[in-house]
């Protein structure tokens, strides 16, 4: 879960990492008053939960009051990778001698924390790492292992620092590790770490990502207003609706709605439709053990989507059982009804009960099931995918035929 730069810097400050003096502004007026307090020139930085800010024009240096007004107006109307700019960080301009890089993240291959430093910070850091791997210095730490000053010193020397700069660099690195651990981050990065002309090391930027699964034990973060948030940029209306109902959902370009079970098959289902010449309209995941209500909501998202012409459904009951699945489908059919054809397959835990629920509902009102084909374990899922593609083709042909009459 990504943090805003200003939130990351707040955590840095709490651990005594030097940051430029700054104020947060949410409109042009407050940007102007912030620049007066800090003193011109200032840097205006768009606060967005995405990278590539500099290249998108999200950072401006303002030398005059007019600059502050003009640039902040500009920035507040900007969108960066779909994120509207709602806040600006107004910051003192640093006198830069050198830009360095320090970051810490989790290495999932080696099961350790990886602390990384490079003497050449800035936006080209990944390119530098690719082309000159020898310029990247690295220290590995076990998750329970104490970080000693001499390890930070090794990294500080790797940043090309010497003499009086080593002590503040060592301190900064140790503090960054403390921030990372204290708030259970997945990433804590200072890029650039600026060596100023008067010999100070200042975190000019802060990139932090927190382990959202560990948030429950960090009430200090929620006190700062840091709660669970999405990081995907601007959501479509349907993605927002799905999210409000706790359903992981993405809109795709195609016309076949995907009503899958777990995330694994949600992804594989996209491949299958593509392999056989179909185009999925969405990715969706029911999550483990969805309630019938959530399953009904999932179907509603597809029924309401004008792009969807047919639906490919799949449930292999594991922790999410077939009886709940069938209840959710029946609930939707009774409350809303399905006008789109659906080919689906259901098997796994409690499949007999799932079949019984469908049979019962069908006996009550056979009309509800006009558009649904339900397959069981005897039909390979590949065939059901092909059938959904076939249903979509027929529906589109039918629609075209209707127009020509």
């Amino acid at each position, binding site marked *: 879960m990504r943090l805003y730069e200003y939130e990351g810097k707040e955590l840095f400050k709490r651990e005594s990492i030097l940051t430029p003096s700054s104020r947060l502004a949410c409109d042009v007026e407050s940007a102007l008053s912030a620049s007066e307090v800090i003193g011109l020139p200032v840097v205006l930085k768009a606060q967005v939960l995405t990278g590539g800010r500099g290249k998108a024009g999200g950072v401006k240096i303002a030398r005059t009051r007019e600059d502050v007004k003009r640039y902040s107006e500009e920035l507040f109307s900007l969108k960066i990778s779909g994120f509207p700019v709602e806040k600006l960080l107004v910051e003192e301009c640093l006198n830069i001698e050198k830009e360095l890089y320090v*970051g810490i993240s989790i290495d*999932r291959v080696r099961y350790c924390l990886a602390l990384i430093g490079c003497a050449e910070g800035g936006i080209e850091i*990944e390119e530098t790492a690719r082309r000159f791997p020898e310029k990247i210095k690295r220290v590995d730490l076990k998750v*329970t292992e104490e970080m000693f000053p001499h390890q930070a010193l090794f990294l500080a020397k790797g940043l090309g620092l010497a003499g009086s700069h080593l002590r503040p660099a060592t301190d900064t690195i140790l503090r960054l590790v403390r921030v990372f651990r204290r708030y259970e981050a997945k990433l804590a*990065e200072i890029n650039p770490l600026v060596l100023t002309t008067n010999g100070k090391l200042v975190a000019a930027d802060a990139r932090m990502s927190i382990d959202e*699964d560990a948030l429950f034990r960090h009430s200090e973060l929620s006190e700062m207003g840091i709660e669970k948030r999405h990081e995907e940029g601007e959501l479509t209306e349907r993605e927002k609706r799905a999210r409000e109902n706790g359903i992981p959902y993405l809109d795709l370009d195609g016309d076949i709605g995907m009503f899958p079970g*777990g995330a694994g098959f949600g992804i594989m289902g996209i491949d299958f439709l593509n392999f056989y010449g179909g185009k999925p309209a969405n990715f969706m995941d029911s999550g483990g053990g969805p309630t019938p209500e959530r399953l009904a909501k999932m179907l509603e998202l597809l029924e309401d989507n004008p792009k969807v012409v047919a639906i490919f459904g799949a449930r*292999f009951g594991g922790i999410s059982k077939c009886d709940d699945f069938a209840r959710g489908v029946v609930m939707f059919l009774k409350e809303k009804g399905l006008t789109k054809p659906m080919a689906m397959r259901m*098997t796994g*835990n409690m499949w007999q009960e799932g079949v019984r629920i469908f049979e019962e509902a069908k006996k009550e009102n056979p009309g509800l099931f006009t558009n649904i084909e339900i397959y069981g374990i005897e039909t390979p899922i590949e065939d059901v995918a092909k059938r959904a593609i076939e249903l979509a083709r027929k529906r589109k042909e039918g629609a075209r035929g209707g127009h020509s009459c």
Partner: protein
Amino acid sequence: MAILVDENSRVIVQGITGGAGSFHTKRMLEYGTKIVSGTSPGKAGQKIEGVPVFDTVAECVAATRANVSVIFLPAQFVLDGAIEAIRAGIRVVVVVPEHIPLADMMKVRQEAKEKGALVIGGNTAGIISPGKANVGIMPDIAFKPGRVGTVSRSGSLTYYVADTLSSSGFGETTCVGLGGDPILGTTFEEILDLFDKDPDTHAVVLVGEIGGVYEEMAPPRIAEMTKPVLAMIAGVHAPRGKRMGHAGAIIEGTMGTAGEKLKALEDSGAHIARTFLDIPVILNKLGV
């Protein structure tokens, strides 16, 4: 033979009195799994489905000679529960819950390595050795005893593979779900190693998906396998995901895309299956 669990495994359920714990205890028992006891602090003396409940894992081990554990605790209690199990002498710990804090899983992995235990998961469907033991939440309808081993990161995909292996007559020795969480207690190559040593396993199907780094760690072990490995990766057509900052990119490089995973697996000698139905075709061609 099977790997990790079989008819002699003596299994405990940590969190046996909870909703998921008691429901799946019943299912596992019905399958014939030897569930010998369960834990729920403060509820010692109770019985769930006829299975005795103890306060601690150590008591389960002492009273019922347990050697495998399956955890149905809420995610925030997994760190304590898994380490308790490892320290009580349990050698295989299956972690069903998802969303376990990353630092917790790294600590559990470290403890397991030091004590010579295997922790499977989190967010795993479990382990099943068809006809012998079902430890976790896997739907038994999909599985038949046989000669192929399966190791997978995704629950739902595991079931489809099993279903295909059953209906095509190959069946499975053991199926291991590694789990869908970002940090796994056990990785592909560790399970491949066990399958390679199991005389009844004639081939292994490895099922991965986009994201993460674990599929890329398997190739060196695949290259040394004495039996064929089939590999399947979900997400060839998936939209590209997000990346974890510069540090993530520097550490993990190009790992994570379906293309990179398939290439690394194919280069190491794995046979690539695009769909489930490709699996029996390839196995037949190899004479498994």
